[in-house]
């Protein structure tokens, strides 16, 4: 009985993840090697060329997605770290309140937030319209339909997922270790650079993981905030899947995307010197 306990505890999740994650992925892998069209049907032909074709056609969008995802992740890191730092070390008794405030927008739906941005940033909307009215902005100034808007939207939407893990890591840093560094002649900056920052790296790692992946694959921000040259791989997969019913291409692209992300994560983990990615990610 004692021996069985962990298996019984794990069983429901195993089943859930197995049936709804592993099996569909396997099915998708198989579809990605088929050929045909939606009207006449698809057949398994082991055409690995689906991958090269898809990549050939959509390398721009894939690279762009990685770029946007990367830019947004860097932006989140730069913007979010100081916040996590302040809350962890100076938040005092109100830490959880600050964290909750950061999370609050998440209760009103991703799309609604993005739409609100679209509304707020509208060329002649309450913000820019007013400023233009006062002559503070040129008439044709706009933010929407630009790369900036898309990357900004991604940054906005995933920021809390960067802040939370960094906060958790920083909160675990023993303040006495910082004092020890200062005691050993480190200035505040040096103490931060040599002690606090390295100790928070597992949090940074988790944060990057939790933001880079969804940001890179996200179709919504490009769709709502982007313009003509901001199409991301997520939009392409959506089009191929839903509009063109080109399931093999859509599947091949999905797998390529996941593979690229995974490889990226492992390289990144290496660079950080994290021996065990899974563990770091799990923490």
């Amino acid at each position, binding site marked *: 009985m004692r021996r069985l306990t962990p298996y019984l505890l794990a069983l429901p999740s195993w089943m859930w993840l197995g049936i709804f994650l592993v099996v569909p992925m396997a099915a998708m892998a198989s579809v990605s090697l088929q050929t045909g069209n939606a009207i006449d049907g698809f057949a398994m032909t082991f055409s690995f060329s689906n991958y090269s074709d898809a990549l050939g056609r959509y390398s721009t969008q894939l690279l762009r997605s990685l770029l946007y995802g990367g830019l947004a992740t860097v932006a989140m890191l730069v913007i979010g770290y100081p916040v996590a730092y302040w809350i962890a070390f100076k938040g005092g008794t109100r830490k959880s309140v600050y964290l909750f405030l950061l999370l609050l927008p998440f209760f009103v739906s991703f799309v609604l937030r993005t739409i609100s941005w679209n509304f707020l940033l509208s060329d002649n909307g309450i913000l820019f319209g007013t400023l233009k009215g006062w002559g503070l902005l040129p008439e044709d100034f706009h933010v929407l339909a630009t790369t900036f808007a898309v990357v900004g939207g991604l940054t906005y939407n995933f920021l809390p997922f960067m802040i939370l893990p960094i906060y958790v890591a920083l909160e675990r840093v*023993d303040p*006495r*270790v910082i*004092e*020890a*560094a*200062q*005691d*050993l*002649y*480190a*200035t505040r900056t*040096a103490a931060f650079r*040599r*002690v606090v920052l*390295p*100790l928070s790296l597992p949090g940074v790692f988790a944060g990057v993981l939790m933001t880079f992946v969804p940001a890179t694959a996200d179709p919504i921000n490009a769709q709502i905030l982007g313009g003509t040259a901001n199409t991301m791989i997520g939009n392409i997969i959506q089009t191929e899947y839903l509009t063109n019913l080109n399931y093999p291409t859509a599947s091949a692209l999905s797998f390529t995307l996941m593979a690229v992300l995974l490889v990226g994560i492992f390289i990144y983990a290496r660079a950080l010197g994290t021996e065990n990615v899974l563990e770091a990610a799990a923490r």
Partner: protein
Amino acid sequence: MAELNAIELEDVVKEYLSHGEVVQAVKGVTLGIAEGEFFSLLGPSGCGKTTTMRMIAGFEPPSKGLVRLHGKDVTNVPPNKRDVNMVFQSYALFPHMSVWDNVAFGLKQRKTPQEEIRRRVGEMLEIVDLTGREKRRPREMSGGQQQRVALARALVNRPRALLLDEPLGALDLKLRQAMQIELKRIQREVGITFVYVTHDQNEALTMSDRIAVMNDGLVEQLAGPREIYERPATAFVAGFIGTSNLLTGTANGGVLKIGGGRVLVPGGDGDVTVTVRPEKITIGTEEPAEGLSAVRGTVAEVVYLGTYNSYAVSLADGASATERSEGANQARHLGDDRSAARGGTIITVFQQNALDATATAERGDSVWLSWQAQHSYVIGS
């Protein structure tokens, strides 16, 4: 203070604001610590030891008063510019750095040449006997080893003084004793001023040149171990350091009548409090000679302690003698004076198991206790 002290505190006060109330952690401490001295701050939990130490290190600015290091006022100098180093209670080793990098940290911050860093860190690891373990991470080391890394990390900078905040507090008894020996040896070897915080009186007695006994934000007595032990300045000190028997009563011509006997109080007259250490008392069945303090009682309990036996002797009449042992004292600290109440008219006597392994007296025996006049010490307050 005539010569230049390594460390001087002048009427230092530290107040914290906690939930809107002002808490005085340190209420006015003045002290000077000489160059090369092994100086201990001893006192119960919450008496202000750590706070005092942190003001010396520069982590907390004093609310009032001055801190001087080698004659220089450093009250407003940040910790990284003070020529003292600290060893933290929990070591505060950098968990992400190897032993070597931990020890080299301070030198690197001061931009010491690479070559010199290598040499000095190597030497220091030699001293703390960790050569060959340079590459390990702190968590891969035992508590005692971590302790030595923390020590090396501070000492390698050749500070003018080393501050140690309960450096052995987290170790178990055996290991603590071993490290006490090591610490003493290292201090002798490097010849640096040590300021040592502890709440363990044995530790303080064994190691220190001088001890400041603190209580409630104030220094109650500052003296060498022997003086602190033999001549406690206050009842608090008497009770906190070792076991003490406190006898109170009205002396008459240098004699305090008590427990069917007499306590000689040279020059004592009127209401007095007298302390006698348990090891000064001789237990016997014969009535003692004239020149000694002597009281009668019944053995209530004998505890075998290996090196010595401890006798609890209940005095013959209900004299107001109080055993002020560690236990009772501590119990009172807990806001629980049950044990103290039980103590009643109990006197504790230690007798070394020198000659015979069996006790000289058994539970229930009627005995005489005696000690020399000079060992009754009248305390100030």
